[in-house]
């Protein structure tokens, strides 16, 4: 190095106050240059995006569905899908039941006494149901039989129904998602349930009674656009039977077919067309379950009449489709296309933690704080920069993941459980926001702990591990649920795109896209952690010597 001729200008008459109003902006710019000028950090963020995209795409490519219908040529992917009904609300639904009906025009009332609800399901005592395995007596919790007024016999058409259920008492349900509780308790010959539906225009009101004399209104609902002539009658159906086994180190779910049989008495339909009679129809193939030999097997008669008494057997469900072992369709959610986000999360928290902690390793923090004595501004600028970088990374990764993953999943024969547009936007933006807030949490940890290894470890353990432990069934479901409520990992709930329906037995595990907290509550948990870490970081940064 050569010795330079030295020419030093006289100091400016500056005050050190500088131009007003650009104080934080200049700190922000400085921190942005710091970030982009370390290649490893930029690569780390690109890696986060790639991990997110590739895991989503890989998971999609892995699913392969094949089928062979009625001895025809083997098919795979989309060709295997049956007709998929959509409910009046646009959601994908199951609409399969045994229906004994008559047309009803204009105003009318249907009343029936349900004296018995029994059922059978596949024998699950020795593991998952096999084709042809025997049926054993038992009721699925949401097995149902009752009376229904339905727009038409088309799957997915509007309806309102009063019913008794396997273990949830009397319910009034409508249009697949609506569910109101009536009288509680199981029914028997000694404790029958009287059910009534009255129709007036678009309005349908449900009542229940223990004796057919004293009636209680359960609910009244509007079925918009109901035609003058509708179908009214009795129905029976049962979703698959599910057994969940919790054990230390894991949770397993087994499902198998089930059917329900309802016995009806004192059936009356006021307002029916003259001369019409009861007709039995298996809506959506909702006749008796094809389980195998036995009293309720493939040979059962779906509908018998004995004087004034009717006996109906059906299987299927009248409910929204949710993911799970008993789902009638292979389903995916858009949140599942973002499953890779938790891998991206690892890369992001590592970079974010180092963004602050490496300054301590080399003593660079002194240069930083000598340049900007307002320590809070330094912390804020670092949080904003890393948060913004993670947000953009997350948005790009989420949009590409869904853009690539969803068509792949659909081509492989899976059914995307669609969500309203606003929900999909929330899942995508929320995933990016989760990455951003997790990055802020990690950068604050870096400031508190001042050591990269410690900051990264704590960030990964609190943000990423709880999901992995739960998803891989390392901890029992109950413990996993609490982990996903209390730790920063709760924010993964923002990826839940499907509502939780209480009237469906769903396996609500994170792998299926269900989280114990609601999306925004889960996200708020992470925000609280980040805010607490930032506050602690600020106090320590101000108190400690640099």
């Amino acid at each position, binding site marked *: *190095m050569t010795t330079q001729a030295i020419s030093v200008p006289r*100091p400016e008459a500056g005050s050190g106050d500088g131009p007003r109003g650009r104080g934080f902006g200049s700190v922000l710019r400085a*921190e942005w240059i710091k970030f982009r000028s370390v290649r490893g950090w930029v690569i780390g963020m690109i890696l986060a995006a790639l991990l997110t995209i590739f895991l989503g795409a890989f998971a999609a490519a892995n699913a392969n569905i094949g089928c062979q219908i009625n001895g025809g040529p083997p098919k795979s992917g989309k060709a295997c899908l049956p007709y998929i009904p959509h409910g009046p609300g646009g959601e994908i639904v199951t609409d399969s039941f045994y229906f004994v009906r008559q047309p009803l025009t204009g105003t009318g009332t249907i009343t029936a006494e349900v004296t018995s609800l029994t059922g059978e399901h596949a024998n699950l005592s020795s593991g998952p149901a096999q084709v042809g395995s025997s049926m054993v007596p038992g009721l699925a919790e949401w097995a149902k039989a009752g009376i229904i007024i339905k727009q038409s016999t088309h799957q997915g058409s509007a309806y309102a129904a009063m019913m008794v259920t396997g273990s949830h008492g009397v319910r009034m349900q409508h249009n697949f998602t609506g569910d109101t509780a009536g009288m509680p308790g199981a029914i028997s010959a000694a404790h029958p349930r009287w059910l009534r539906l009255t129709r007036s225009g678009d309005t349908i009101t449900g009542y229940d009674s223990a004796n057919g004399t004293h009636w209680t209104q359960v609910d009244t609902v509007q079925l918009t656009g109901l035609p003058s002539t509708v179908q009214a009658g009795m129905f029976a159906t049962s979703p698959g039977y599910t057994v969940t086994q919790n054990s230390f180190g894991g949770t397993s779910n087994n499902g198998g077919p089930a059917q329900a049989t309802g016995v009806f008495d004192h059936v009356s339909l006021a307002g029916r067309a003259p001369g019409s009679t009861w007709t039995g129809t298996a809506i959506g193939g909702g006749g008796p379950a094809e389980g195998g030999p036995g009293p309720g097997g493939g040979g059962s008669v779906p509908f018998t009449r004995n004087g004034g008494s009717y006996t109906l057997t059906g299987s299927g469900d009248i409910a929204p489709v949710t993911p799970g072992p008993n789902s009638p369709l292979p389903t995916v959610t858009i949140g599942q296309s973002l499953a890779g986000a938790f891998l991206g999360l690892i890369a992001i928290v590592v970079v974010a933690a180092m963004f602050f902690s490496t300054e301590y390793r080399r*003593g660079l923090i*002194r*240069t930083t704080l000598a*340049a900007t004595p307002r320590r809070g501004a330094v912390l804020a600028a670092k949080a904003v920069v890393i948060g913004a970088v993670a947000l953009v990374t997350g948005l790009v990764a989420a949009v590409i993941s869904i853009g690539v993953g969803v068509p792949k999943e659909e081509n492989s024969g899976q059914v995307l459980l669609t969500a309203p547009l606003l929900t999909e936007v929330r899942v995508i933006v929320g995933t990016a926001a989760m990455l951003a807030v997790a990055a802020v949490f990690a950068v604050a940890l870096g400031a508190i702990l001042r050591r990269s290894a410690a900051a990264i470890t704590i960030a990964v353990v609190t943000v990423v591990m709880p999901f992995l432990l739960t998803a891989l069934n390392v901890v029992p479901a109950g413990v996993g649920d609490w982990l996903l409520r209390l730790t920063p990992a709760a924010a993964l709930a923002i990826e839940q795109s499907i509502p939780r329906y209480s009237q469906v037995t769903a396996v609500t595990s994170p792998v299926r896209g269900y989280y114990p907290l609601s999306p925004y509550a889960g996200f708020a948990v992470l925000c609280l952690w980040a805010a607490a870490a930032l506050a602690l970081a600020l106090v320590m940064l101000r108190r400690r010597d640099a």
Partner: protein
Amino acid sequence: MQATIEVSGLRKRFGPTLALDGMSFTVQPGQVTGFVGPNGAGKSTTMRVILGLDAADEGKATVGGTSYASLRQPMRVIGSLLDAGALQPSRSARNHLLWLAHSQGLDAKRVDEVIEQAGLQGVARRRAGGYSLGMRQRLGIAAAMLGNPAAIMLDEPFNGMDPEGIVWMRGFLRSLAAGGRVVLVSSHLMSELQDTADHLVVVGRGKVIADTTVASLLAAASGDRVTLRTSARPQAKAVLENAGATVVASGQDVLTISGLAAERVVALLSALAVPFSEVSAHRATLEQAYMELTKQAVEFRPAGFDADAAQEVPQ
């Protein structure tokens, strides 16, 4: 503007160690002020307190009358270099200067100016992690000069520099002072500051031992020590002691006299016809003056090393 550095009554304790024990001094513009003292005397701690990085338990430090922490763009008032190694290794020198410049509302043009001043044009886009210590010192100087500040404060800037770099640094410091700046430079070696500093703040054990110009420190330390070579040692000793001097026999035929100037020694001996062959007056070096001052204040002293004992170690 004036950016006089004022330190008054700083006290700071790190656990059981009293790092600063009433440190007070003022650094004036237009001269190079050396901040010297043995390792552990509190120089770096004082500098960190001036920059608002460490909080003092008592006392205060100001730059141009205000505390550093209240400056919005402090590098436009005082530039500093505490540790040349404080760099993100994978960031280029230019990017290092660029983020610093932006934090002070300065632009890339100013960055290129200081890169040129520090002689780093050819290497500015390389990773700072690959820099030699000397190059890091130059990068640190470039950073300190970014805001064209009225004051500059450097902690041990000569460390790791090759002789050429030391010459460059001296010239640089002198030109800063000539430009009317406040210049404070610390060192634990007085020799580094000889011919560079005008004023000295000598510290030991957390407080100021001497706050003086280089000239008066030299004068005080050199005193009037005279070495005399004479064949009539007892006679000369009696004469000089009579005249009020302190005389010590420091060798065969050699006396060391303090308390009398060389001219007086020659006059006295000549008048009484005491024979002598050589009279020499001693000027102490800055280093000696400093050693003398800090003898009491050295924090860590090596245990006595006994050369004879070392030889007894069995082979």
